[in-house]
């Protein structure tokens, strides 16, 4: 997406409300159903985005799940009824915590973000942030700013980064405002960033020319908490939407967790898993994936923890049969041939046509052979 300014929510950000001011003067908000015309840079950006969207539609990375797309689009409409008809949602299979909005209303939500949101309110805050970028025309503002500050001598990098942070603070404020207007509990916005800070306490994403600079996570969190503290939350019927959100995620959470473990960022995954286990939904699958995390990290103490997690998982009705497979692998690694054999046999009873059943049958035969 060369030359296309994408606004990605890579880390939390919130600051004082800024007006929609571009480097050459005020930039009017995008009106519903408005599209730019003529030979403007904005019209050019739209043309580029349309080309990007055509490629996105046929991209194998996109998750084709109409129910999930409709649900997320429904949240967008709840937040911004006047703009939602122009916003198209794409769910991208990628375990990064990320969402992005192009200037034409091309909204990408990465599955890593979906895993991390605890409820509808939290996801809605993130969506509202992206709507803020869209309505305030931040792509155009950033492009104009970038052009104004780059010459053949170089870039005014810090100034460009600061302008980007101003945009991010504004989008955060808009996201917060839309959240409150839609009747959600404003405290959930800060909880998004609390969770992010717990996962990556010292890490702020480095600024890039595409994604731009973000204020620190701590700054964003502090500002959101301050805003929520002044909002009316007692006695109000504030929506959180936990059950609705989890019902949507239930169908896909198993592979969201697979992807998260597959990142091999075990410290961060451990934080995510701990929070999900505390929330208590789908504990069989969660303990299985906690086991996978330890098994794949593979230190000697990890294998002991992995076994206990798999056993814990099997106490719950939603434990995947793969827990037996993984137990077989760990027992075999520890030299406990009998336990390994039993575990693999149980797995094959439950998944006789598993994709790897032939290799497991071979391993079972090796384990059963006299030494």
């Amino acid at each position, binding site marked *: 997406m060369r030359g296309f300014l994408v606004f990605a929510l890579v880390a939390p950000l919130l600051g004082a409300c800024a007006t929609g001011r571009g480097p050459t003067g005020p930039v009017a908000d995008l009106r519903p159903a408005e599209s730019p015309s003529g030979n403007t840079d904005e019209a050019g950006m739209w043309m580029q985005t349309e080309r990007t969207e055509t490629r996105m539609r046929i991209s194998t*990375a996109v998750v084709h799940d109409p129910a999930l797309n409709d649900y997320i689009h429904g949240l967008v409409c709840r937040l911004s009824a006047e703009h939602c008809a122009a916003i198209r949602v794409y769910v991208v299979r990628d*375990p990064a915590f990320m969402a992005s909005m192009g200037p034409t209303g091309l909204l990408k939500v990465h599955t890593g973000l979906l895993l991390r949101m605890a409820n509808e309110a939290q996801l809605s805050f993130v969506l509202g942030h992206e709507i803020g970028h869209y309505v305030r025309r931040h792509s155009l503002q950033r492009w104009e700013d970038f052009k104004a500050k780059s010459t053949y001598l170089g870039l005014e990098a810090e100034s460009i980064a600061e302008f980007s942070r101003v945009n991010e603070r504004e989008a955060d404020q808009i996201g917060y405002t839309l959240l409150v207007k839609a009747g959600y509990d404003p405290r959930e916005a800060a909880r998004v960033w609390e969770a992010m800070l717990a996962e990556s306490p010292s890490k702020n994403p480095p600024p890039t020319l595409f994604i731009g600079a973000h204020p620190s996570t701590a700054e964003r969190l502090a500002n959101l908490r301050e805003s929520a503290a002044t909002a009316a939350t007692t006695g109000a019927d504030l929506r959180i939407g936990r059950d609705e959100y989890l019902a949507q995620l239930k169908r896909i959470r198993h592979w969201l967790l697979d992807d998260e473990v*597959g990142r091999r*960022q075990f410290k961060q995954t451990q934080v995510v898993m701990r929070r999900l286990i505390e929330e208590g939904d789908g504990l069989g699958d969660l303990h299985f994936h906690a086991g996978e995390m330890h098994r*794949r990290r593979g230190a000697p103490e990890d294998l002991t923890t992995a076994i206990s997690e798999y056993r814990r998982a099997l106490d719950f009705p939603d434990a995947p049969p793969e827990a037996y497979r993984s137990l077989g692998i760990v027992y075999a690694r520890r030299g406990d041939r009998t336990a390994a054999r039993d575990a693999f046999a149980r797995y094959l009873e439950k998944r006789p046509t598993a*994709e*790897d059943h*032939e290799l497991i049958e071979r391993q079972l035969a090796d384990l059963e052979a006299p030494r």
Partner: protein
Amino acid sequence: MKRLSALTALALLAAGCALTQGNYRLVEPGVRSIDETYRVYSRLAWSSAAEGKIETWTVDGFSLESLKFYKGIADGETLLPNRANDITAARFRASMTPLESVEFVVDSLYGSPFTPRSVRPAHFGRADGFRFEVSYWRGDGVKREALVTGATVKGRLHVIIYEGTALYHFERYRPDVERLLESIALIDS
């Protein structure tokens, strides 16, 4: 033939590059030794590039299809040399079962969105190895297919991965690659 721009010719001369030399070598049809561990027979001609323990062959271009030889990954090593200093990267252990070796390759190259299928035992010459297939995509979102085979030989992991665009290139050379895989013969030390 259209003329080179003067600037380009100067630059090439300055780089000391002969116009007939390139970045890739020709692999003629016939028998080739890989890492002095095994031989393969190819009935196709390929263009080859090597970087460390990875030798890559292609017919049409590396973005379209490739045949990659990962040679002799030792205990404790990562599959990809550029992950060697990454403490989170998966590492090979000589004690891995074929099932674990499959997982090591998938972890190293593909990650979770890409689930291996048809995972089964396979001969790697006379060594007991594994093979599987997987559909995946890279940053460009284009669907690709891969056929992976490997085995641990004398404590080191050897992996051969053939991959290509799902729309055309993977199937185009698959019969030739299958023939090459059948031809694997371990070199006796």
